């Protein structure tokens, strides 16, 4: 499907729009060719490929809306999905808040931004060789190696009866690994992860060495009492926090409904923090159009610690009077718009020197299983994982058992002692990508610790 030429995409969208008798109609085509090679216990154990494409049709007839989707893309399938959407709209109650499709705004974008042919053509052998390189790095240090190497092409094409007609194709290569010295209590572990539109941007051997070195240093982890500590958060940890801030706070709908910590015009974080969402930036994983066909705007969400904007789709943008910023998700969307291409501005510090200013603190490689505890205060909880160390007198003194944290992120980001010049790009756990520096924070609240052995 992903090999479909532009004419094929247009033919599908044209047929859907022509079939509809509604006042406004939108056709969204999402096609994916995704492959993933997964390894664990030092061998490839899952190796999969998926070819799929889905046509989603939204009709707006007066104030009545209907949405239907299918992955059957022959003529009967296209006609059938349009008819289903029309039938749903006919039987629906009015929904004036959302009865709006966007119009073209004349802005340009690159339909192939972030498309790299070699990534699209990556073979199972290529992924297998990379897996073998990562495994070799772990075996050299007697570790159990697991991970995955995914390559994919995503094509998004949108047309609506108000004149929007856009399409984009982009590629993604993502390799992550977790290395452990066993699966028992107190096992040491290390981690490395990288994402890029270009397969060539993934250095499997380097990632293998990074994770293996980290796991090796984690051997013999001991407990440290939970409490508030100065922390160094590696880019992986920062990106994880940013992703969840995005889920709960940067949406125009969450802001409109009073559920967000973002109070526009007010200081919500330290002045070192500037957060931007930019779906066109080549330093991310570009997706310059949204799922309503609007070209994404660069939105500065937090400027020097002050909440400056939230992102919008067509419906929330119309209600806010700003118009869409190009952050709509596929209809029907009760979640609201989402900032999924976040960039946190880097600082001035050299990454390798940041630890020197920490007299006593905790080094966190990444967080695991983050979830909101209180969205409006942006209090999150989660565990440290794959590399937690005590810092004493400016150096890593010993490895630590994992902590649980319960912490308001804006509060933690209000005391940034340093941010690294260098940044890393991490694909989101579910969607999008997040580019973050390493941070030195003045305080972070660890509320629990996992004991080495636990029985009833």
């Amino acid at each position, binding site marked *: 499907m992903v090999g479909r030429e532009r004419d094929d995409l247009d033919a599908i969208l044209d047929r859907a729009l022509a079939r509809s008798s509604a006042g406004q109609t939108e056709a969204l085509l999402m096609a994916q060719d995704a492959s993933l090679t997964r390894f*664990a*216990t*030092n*061998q*490839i*154990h*899952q*190796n*999969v490929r*998926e*070819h*799929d*494409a889905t046509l989603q049709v939204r009709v707006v007839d007066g104030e009545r809306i209907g*949405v239907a*989707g299918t*992955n*059957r893309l022959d003529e009967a399938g296209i006609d059938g999905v349009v008819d*289903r959407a029309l039938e*749903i709209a006919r*039987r*629906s109650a009015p*929904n004036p808040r*959302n009865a709006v499709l966007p119009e073209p705004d004349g802005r340009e974008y690159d339909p192939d931004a972030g498309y790299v042919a070699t990534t699209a053509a990556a073979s199972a*052998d290529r992924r*297998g060789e990379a*897996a073998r390189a990562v495994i070799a790095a772990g075996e050299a240090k007697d570790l*159990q190696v*697991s991970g*995955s190497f*995914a390559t994919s092409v995503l094509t998004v094409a949108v047309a609506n009866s108000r004149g929007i007609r856009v399409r984009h194709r982009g590629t993604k290569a993502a390799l*992550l*690994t*977790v290395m*452990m010295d066993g*699966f028992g209590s107190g096992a040491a572990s290390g981690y490395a992860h990288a994402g890029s539109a270009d397969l060539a941007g993934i250095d499997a051997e380097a990632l293998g060495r990074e994770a293996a070195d980290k796991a090796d240093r984690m051997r013999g982890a001991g407990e440290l009492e939970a409490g508030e500590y100065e922390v160094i958060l590696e880019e992986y940890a920062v990106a994880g926090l940013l992703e969840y801030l995005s889920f709960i706070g940067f949406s125009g709908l969450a802001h409109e*409904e*009073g*559920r967000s910590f973002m109070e526009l015009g007010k200081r919500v974080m330290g002045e070192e923090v500037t957060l931007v969402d930019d779906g066109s930036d080549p330093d991310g994983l570009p997706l310059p159009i949204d799922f309503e066909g609007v070209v994404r705007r660069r939105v500065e969400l937090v400027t020097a610690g002050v909440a400056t904007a939230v992102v919008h789709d067509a419906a929330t943008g119309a209600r806010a009077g700003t118009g869409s910023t190009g952050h709509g998700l596929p*209809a029907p969307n*009760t979640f609201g718009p989402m900032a999924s291409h976040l960039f946190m501005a880097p600082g001035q510090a050299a990454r390798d020197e940041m630890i020197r200013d920490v007299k006593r603190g905790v080094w966190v490689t990444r967080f*695991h*299983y983050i*979830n909101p*505890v*209180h*969205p*409006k205060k942006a209090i999150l*909880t989660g*565990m440290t*994982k794959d590399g937690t160390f005590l810092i004493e007198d400016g150096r890593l003194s010993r490895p630590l058992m994992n902590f*649980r944290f*319960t912490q308001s992120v804006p509060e933690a980001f209000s005391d940034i002692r340093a941010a690294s010049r260098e940044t890393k790009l991490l694909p989101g756990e579910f969607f999008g990508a997040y580019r973050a520096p390493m941070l030195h924070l003045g305080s972070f609240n660890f*509320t*629990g*610790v*996992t*004991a080495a052995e*636990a*029985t*009833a």
Partner: protein
Amino acid sequence: MKDLIERALDAAERGGASYADVRVQERETESLTVKNGALEAVSSNVSAGFGIRVIVDGAWGFSSSARLEPEEAERIGREAVEIARASVLARRAPVELDDTPPATDTYRTPYEEDPFSVSLDEKVRILMEADAAMARVPGVAIREGSMSSGRERKTFASSSGAWVEQEIVEAGGGIEATAVNETEMQQRSYPNSFGGQMVTGGFEAVRALDLPDHGQETAELAVALLDAPQCPSGEMDLILDSTQVALQIHESCGHPTELDRVFGTEASFAGTSFLTTDKLGTLRYGSDLVSIDADATAPGGLGTFGYDDEGVPAQNVPLIERGMLVGYLTSRETAPRIGRRSMGSARAWMWSNIPLIRMTNINLRPGEAGSLEDLIADTRDGIFMSINKSWSIDDRRLNFQFGDQAGWLIKNGKRAQLVKNPTYTGITPQFWGSCDAICGPDEWTLWGLPNCGKGEPVQTGHVGHGAAPARFRGVKVGVGRW
């Protein structure tokens, strides 16, 4: 379809596969949401396709396609073989499956009222009535009600001769009220959060929820929570309602008994498990009161089916027996490694996914503590928490923290002060070891959980958890700085 399946299997075997299976699947869903008196969203989706899984030279390969055509089946069969050959690049031990006999059978979810035959008007009417009931309460900022229906038709066939056809039907719904002020956002759901209740079965289950009748009390509690004091911090005796016990089972028993996690094959994403196989039969997981079963045959459970996606029949097996670890959730590949045959818990979400070990219905057997009110009356000083709003657990499933929508302090056997943002935290076996009372069968509910995620690419899982309210002694509550 027969031609498609046979050509896929033939192509795989001709390519050198020692084993192959094909799953042709169509998933149809309908969902609707009413928000603040308007029909916010209605959608209907259908996705169909097939996936082929092969073993070549002892290594797995899988490919899939949405084009349900015999020629495409041959191409995808060959592609799966090529992918398996790439897996051999990093192979240590060859894959071996158990000796489950190939089944030939059909299964259909029993139901009274097909959820897809109920008119949109009728569904909207129920949700609008519930919305109106919530709207009668001043101070509610957001009112939401939702319903969802699902129908999955699938045919599984293997090179060993299995042929299983199934139709799984699901229905569910719920409501939620949100109240906000300058510093707080408080929510209350009925009958549960994250979409309410969901079952395998018909629309009769949604009607039985009687959503309009619960609109007002749901909204009133959301508003009351805004001005409630913060949950205190400290160690307290904790009573959980059955919805929260269900999620506690899910996170701290269901996931760690998945044998693929135990063997480390999910280590890079979901994590591993503290329930390593050396503990089978010897680990005290909880108190004597704690017995937990994996029951894929439970009527109405969201994890109920006829056969899993390896063609293994649905079963009811114990995982925890009087507090001791006695079993795991297994697949045909993992079960032989502990000397057993698969108990049938390998399931895939879509046609494009491989089956992974997924929970079925992981059920805590009811106890003898009577009703919830009996249990509260039996508690001198403690806290009662109800309906989840936050969850997190570490990669080995030991260190957990949950937050609930509402808490009530218990004083001298009576429900006293309402408190907001209640949270509790603990270590899995210590927590279940502190369980000293479980309510009886009348309080036991089989809850559906439709948002379980696992695997790479991430797959959704629909699972069930039977639970009654239970009491845990000396639990750390009120976590964090507020």
